[in-house]
């Protein structure tokens, strides 16, 4: 896409894109840190994630301000209008990802002083790996305007849902084996649920990014694959 006749218009749109990139990077960092803090019982890391959330909120406010000023000043049309409105919505999803990461980090002390046993943590680790790849992927594809890849990225959310169902079953089994696991497992369950919801926010971002780039909506979403509502312990 060519440049605007008024160059400061391009700079203003560029600044909004950079904020999305920053918020995306921060979301990735926060999710990664919150999971490690939880599994390693790392209070300092947990604290950092909690304070990062304030930065995330500030970025979102800055993006809102810039977007609203741009709309008032430039009255953007077509792809410019989609880019600004899309950025506001994507920032909303990124901010929610930050909240969910903070919520995970806050559970660190509740799980206990000792690191979570490997047997309990590997399912969550696998799940967070998938989620981090999704966050990084969606931000990259948005910033480099690769609309075509977003369909596949959205479809990949299914892997997170499958992993969530597996973690759910596994944790349920541990709780039944030994009631002393119940406290830790309950927190891990919430953590898994948060990761699953982060995946859903990434899906929203992918849909918004696709609309920003193409002006078209992705076809309606696949049916949700959350089997935990009917899962009995394995």
């Amino acid at each position, binding site marked *: 896409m060519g440049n605007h*006749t008024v160059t400061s218009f391009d700079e203003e749109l560029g600044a909004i894109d950079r904020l999305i990139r920053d918020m995306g990077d921060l979301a990735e960092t926060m999710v990664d840190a919150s999971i490690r803090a939880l599994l390693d019982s790392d209070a300092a890391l947990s604290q950092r994630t909690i304070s990062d959330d304030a930065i995330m909120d500030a970025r979102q406010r800055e993006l809102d301000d810039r977007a609203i000023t741009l709309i008032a000043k430039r009255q953007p*049309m*077509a*792809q410019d*209008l989609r880019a600004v409105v899309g950025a506001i919505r994507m920032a909303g999803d990124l901010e929610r990802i930050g909240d969910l990461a903070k919520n995970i980090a806050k559970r660190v002390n509740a799980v206990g002083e000792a690191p979570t046993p490997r047997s309990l943590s590997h399912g969550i680790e696998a799940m967070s790996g998938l989620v981090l790849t999704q966050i990084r992927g969606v931000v990259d594809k948005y910033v480099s305007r690769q609309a075509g890849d977003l369909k596949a990225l959205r479809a990949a959310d299914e892997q997170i849902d499958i992993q969530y169902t597996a973690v759910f079953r596994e944790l349920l089994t541990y709780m039944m084996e030994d009631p002393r696991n119940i406290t830790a497992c309950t927190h891990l369950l919430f953590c898994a649920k948060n990761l699953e919801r982060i995946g859903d926010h990434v899906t929203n971002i992918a849909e918004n990014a696709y609309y920003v780039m193409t002006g078209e909506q992705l076809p309606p979403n696949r049916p949700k694959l959350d089997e935990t509502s009917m899962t009995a312990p394995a």
Partner: protein
Amino acid sequence: MLTDVAMEQKLAPTQDQHMIKIQGQEVCVHYGEKQALFSVNLDVRENQVTALIGPSGCGKSTFLRCLNRMNDTIDSARVSGTITLDGENIYDKAIDVVELRARVGMVFQKPNPFPKSIYENVAYGPRIHGLAKKKADLDEIVETSLKKAAIWNEVKDRLHEAGTGLSGGQQQRLCIARAIAVSPEVILMDEPCSALDPIATARVEELIDELRQNYTIVIVTHSMQQAARVSQRTAMFHLGYLVEEGDTDKMFTNPDDKRTQDYITGRFG
């Protein structure tokens, strides 16, 4: 008498149930040797506002003037192709141009009040077309037309002063009042708000919305926001060609043509 084909065309509703009021087919215009419009095919739908947009000199005013044969008044202008109003060819020899221009009224890019009083500017059309039987009827038409054009309060105490003594923006609104006074079926507006302040602009936009219930409107505007606000259909011209035409909502959120995109987003040249 309409032919069967013309009759069918007239009655055929378009996809969204609006009849075609004016149909332009293969419209070309030359000014002397220079061609200003190239084979333009454009339908204007009844009770809709159609906006014509595009960079300066692309032929918007030229196309607009074809629709009520105003180009006839320009010696060097030559129009070819077909333009029908309710299925009738307006360039047919049997057409009375004066009557045509009463049915298809126009507000010009540059305000052009008659060198007469404000009252006479508005009363002239209704009087010659016999729209008022009594003086009171005429007064009524003058007042409502000036009110609709959002200028009544400014001129009600000086109706018998010269129209040319008004400010540019006031003259433009006087010309709008003059155009609507004869209750035309179609109103052509060439940048009607370019000399107006935001309040008068808002009033004119409100008027356009109101007029659309009973009339058909074609408006040329350089304000993309105005086109997006007032029109249902938008046609984009470039260098004498119609490059894209469609629903206004789509044109301003997701146009198909690169030139339209560049133009409406401010990326042109």
